[in-house]
């Protein structure tokens, strides 16, 4: 196997498991030089508050392939900032305007629609794309973790506070504690070549497996006494136990993969939103995305979601609520309109904060040599936050996507609801003009699923067919 040659190379280098990212960079450059196809990875990312389109949308001078995102105040500038992030990622992003979330619900609840493509009825009605790829398609079966859900600040699993959902739209929890995230990915790896440590680790794995045996046995003994619905609960439990069991298997890629230093909890004395965690969100976000990049480089998981949060109990809410859009900043509207430039810059600064986190994540993936085989889909639950609009959400595809999508571009979908229309009713396209041609995020989900090899033509739960079809222009 090609993978073994990478290990051989590392052993030849004499690199210990604690060796540096440099080792990985070498390893992956070797892997790529050999033409090894790295498995494709998917990361769904959420950021709050919508977007100040004045500092985000395409400008008059921009074209699909020639565009400026480095101008003063542009919230997308981290993607073209080689001084900070080592290189420009302009050729690794694909920005799409005019995508509408088909939640049929309010702005905040629409986070649940992003990866499910489902209308929201309390919860979405089907599983999210990360879970579909990892479990339904089985692409996560080989890795230590089929998928991982990380978050910053918000442990809650209400529809608006998570983007990962299991079968039937059951919200999945996310990990917000960096220490837990470290354990999730890296616990159980023997450190170094110490035979005693290796023996201890082997013993721990055996003990863990015995516990698994008991749980499995007890589940199987209980199962026959139960009705079908109850058996489903135990089926879910068994699936979870199979995931847990992977923790007790010998980590096979330890030689090619460096275990990072565990996070220092003194860096984040509080982690929860509304409970003192806000000042530590930047460091928590960096730790989380660093560990995720490392875990993906180690091929411990290929599917993840990251729920970003900013200072959401402080002034950010006020800024988002007071955002006053100009017509000029809205898609396909060249004329200057009402709105307050002061609010555009404040909201753009918040957007900038979140895009910095994503750019930094891309930088890490790139250093590990896996950016080209990763696809990031990052968006928000709303477009214009003052109105909590679920139309025109800021849509970013990033990474090399294993060449499946053509990156380095900006796309604009057709205009749909004008901003001064209070309620945009798809069943009455004639009301107020020919403005309705929504481009649902479902099409992105179908395109991504196909990029991962799924033979599907629809994704999500919609009544009006908006879950059908791919998004033109991606491939």
């Amino acid at each position, binding site marked *: 196997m090609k993978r073994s040659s990478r290990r051989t190379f590392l052993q030849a280098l004499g690199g210990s498991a604690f060796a540096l990212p440099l080792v990985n960079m070498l390893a992956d450059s070797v892997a790529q030089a050999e033409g090894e196809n790295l498995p494709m990875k998917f990361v769904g990312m959420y950021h709050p508050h919508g977007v100040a389109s004045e500092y985000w949308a395409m400008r008059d001078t921009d074209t699909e392939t020639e565009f400026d995102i480095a101008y003063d105040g542009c919230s997308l500038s981290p993607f073209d900032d080689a001084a900070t992030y080592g290189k420009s990622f302009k050729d690794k992003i694909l920005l799409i305007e005019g995508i509408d979330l088909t939640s049929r619900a309010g702005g905040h609840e629409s986070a649940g629609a992003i990866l499910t493509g489902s209308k929201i009825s309390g919860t979405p009605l089907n599983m999210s794309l990360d879970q579909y790829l990892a479990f339904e398609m089985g692409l996560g079966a080989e890795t230590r973790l089929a998928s991982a859900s990380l978050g910053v600040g918000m442990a809650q699993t209400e529809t608006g506070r998570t983007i990962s959902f*299991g079968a039937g739209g059951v919200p999945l929890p996310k990990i917000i504690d960096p220490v837990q995230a470290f354990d999730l990915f890296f616990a159980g790896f023997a450190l170094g070549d110490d035979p005693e440590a290796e023996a201890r680790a082997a013993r721990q794995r055996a003990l863990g497996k*015995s516990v698994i*045996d008991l749980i499995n046995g007890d589940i199987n003994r209980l199962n026959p006494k139960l009705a079908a619905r109850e058996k489903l*609960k135990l089926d879910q439990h068994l699936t979870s136990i199979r995931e847990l069991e992977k923790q007790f298997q010998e980590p096979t890629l330890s030689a090619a993969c460096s275990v990072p230093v565990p996070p220092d909890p003194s860096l984040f004395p509080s982690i929860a939103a509304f409970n003192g965690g806000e000042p530590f969100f930047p460091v928590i976000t960096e730790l989380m995305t660093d560990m995720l990049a490392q875990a993906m480089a180690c091929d411990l998981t290929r599917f993840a979601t990251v729920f970003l949060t900013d200072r959401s109990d402080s002034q950010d809410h006020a800024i988002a609520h007071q955002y006053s859009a100009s017509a000029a900043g809205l898609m396909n509207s060249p004329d200057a309109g009402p709105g307050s430039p002061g609010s555009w810059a404040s909201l753009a600064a918040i957007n900038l904060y979140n895009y910095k986190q994503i750019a930094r994540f891309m930088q890490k993936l790139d250093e590990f040599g896996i950016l080209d085989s990763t696809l990031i889909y990052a968006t928000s639950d709303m477009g214009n936050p003052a109105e909590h609009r679920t139309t025109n959400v800021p849509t970013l595809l990033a990474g090399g996507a294993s060449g499946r999508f053509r990156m380095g571009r900006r796309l604009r979908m057709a205009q749909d609801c004008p901003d001064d229309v209070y309620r945009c009713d798809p069943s009455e396209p004639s009301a107020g003009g020919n403005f309705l041609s929504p481009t649902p995020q479902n099409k992105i989900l179908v395109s991504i699923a196909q990029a991962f090899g799924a033979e599907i033509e629809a994704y999500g739960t919609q009544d009006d067919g908006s879950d059908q079809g791919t998004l033109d222009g991606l491939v």
Partner: protein
Amino acid sequence: MARTTMVCLQMLRSIRSAFILPALAAISCSSPRLSGEQVGEDPGASTDPGGLSPVVLPGGTSSVSLLPARIRRLTNAEYNRSVQALLGTTQTPGEGFPPDTRQHGYTTNEAQVVDPVLARQLDSAAVSLADEAVTRLDEVAPCADPAAGAEACAQAFIDVFAPRAYRRSITEEERAALLALYQSGATGGTYAEGVHQLIRGILQSPNFLYLTEIGSGEQVANIQLAEHEIASQLAYLLTGGPPDEELLASANAGELGNADKRMEHARRLLATDAGKMRAVQLVQEWLGIDRVSETGKDNTVYPEYDALQSAIEQESIDFIQATLMNGGNVEELLGAPWSIVSPELAAFYGVAGEGRVDLPERIGLLNQAAFLTVHSHAVETGPILRGVALMRRLGCIEIELPTFLNVDIVPPAQDPTKTTRERFSIHSTDQACAACHDLIDPLGFSFEQFNAMGGFQSEDNGKPVDSTVEVALGLDFDGPYSNSNELAAAMALSSEVRTCFARQLFRAQAAERDIPEASEATFIETVNAQPIDQQKALIEILVSFTGQELFSYRTAQ
């Protein structure tokens, strides 16, 4: 869309005129066909699942009323109480678990599963609890001679610990599996390591994590719960923790099939500290006010919120506790012109003193800061959130989300020249929205004299606030009110709110998403057959439930 307006009102009226509100019938403002398909249940599904005919139990309850035989995972709080009772630990690992899934707002429910994240955390928690336990090995799993008699000691430990953890006696097969688990630790290790493995495994066993309500496991129309299952139901539903010695003794003596005995235990359990805290939790979850700690405010608009957050939560806990002296009477919960406040909260409320103070301008739980804070946005009041909470939680009127209007839901844009009420009034100008919002909004607007963290506000965006409303739900508290205090006082005396309170307590205890309509009807009939004072009292309603056959019987799904 015009048709929807009338549909909503007609449906509401027709449902109102029925003897009781269907348990989960949704009032659909847009698409009535969905009410049966989406949230109601197929009447056939729960009454006649496997060709079973309805059976009438000795007490007169028909099997069609019974809740389904099922398993239910412990909530995070129940997990904590359970491991504390088992191991004498003070650890609270459940606080770090993913938050409980909720049904009808209640954490106690059958929808909780073990997902991959929780599975890992359960293992970590079990390891940490076992680590602590084996430091007290002499107390937890004493063994006089571990060198020679370790296995005998392990067997003795299994025979004591596993039945307590599983809340029932264990089978030979289970005993053998546990012995094998012990050996996995003790072989090549020590007695302590074997015990460590046992604790780690038992705390992750489905027998510990799920409460069973399956009786003998037979699929028949009426299934009597086993004595140990009834003991667990009583203990977890009424105290949030495992059965105590007295309950176990009753179960072992086979007494819990007897309704009087169950009610006697219920009354006893509800008088304990744990029982009182469970009652507080029920009221909190009923109104959603257990979520103060998860509720944030924009600190540029409400700079005083962070410092008062815990005082706001504590007020409702102390107030509810105090009402339990009178049985947790809904009239007092909603209508008391007093509360129990910290000095800081008293200052915020603008009253002198602390502890129990008169608050004639804050009638009952609805006008206390916790309810007002949770049902608000971060920067402004939430008239819709407040109104919907009143409709659903106190009126027992299920209104659908606007999801099925199939429109983009856009809240009214910020406008510095308008009050929140003026902005939200746009609902009544749009026919599709007005169908439901004409019902919801007056309830919510009545609270406009309270800001998003429950402080008084006389102005909103520089204009005087308007809390006058005309409630027109078709319920017995319809009418004009000058503000939410008047409204709360009327709701406190409403017989329909009283019945809804009992319904809500039943839903919290029934722990089922699609509660069979007949089940809630049976429950309410029994409650309403009691003297009026008992119909109002939380304690009496819960006790009544334990005496019903609904409590001790299940039916095949």
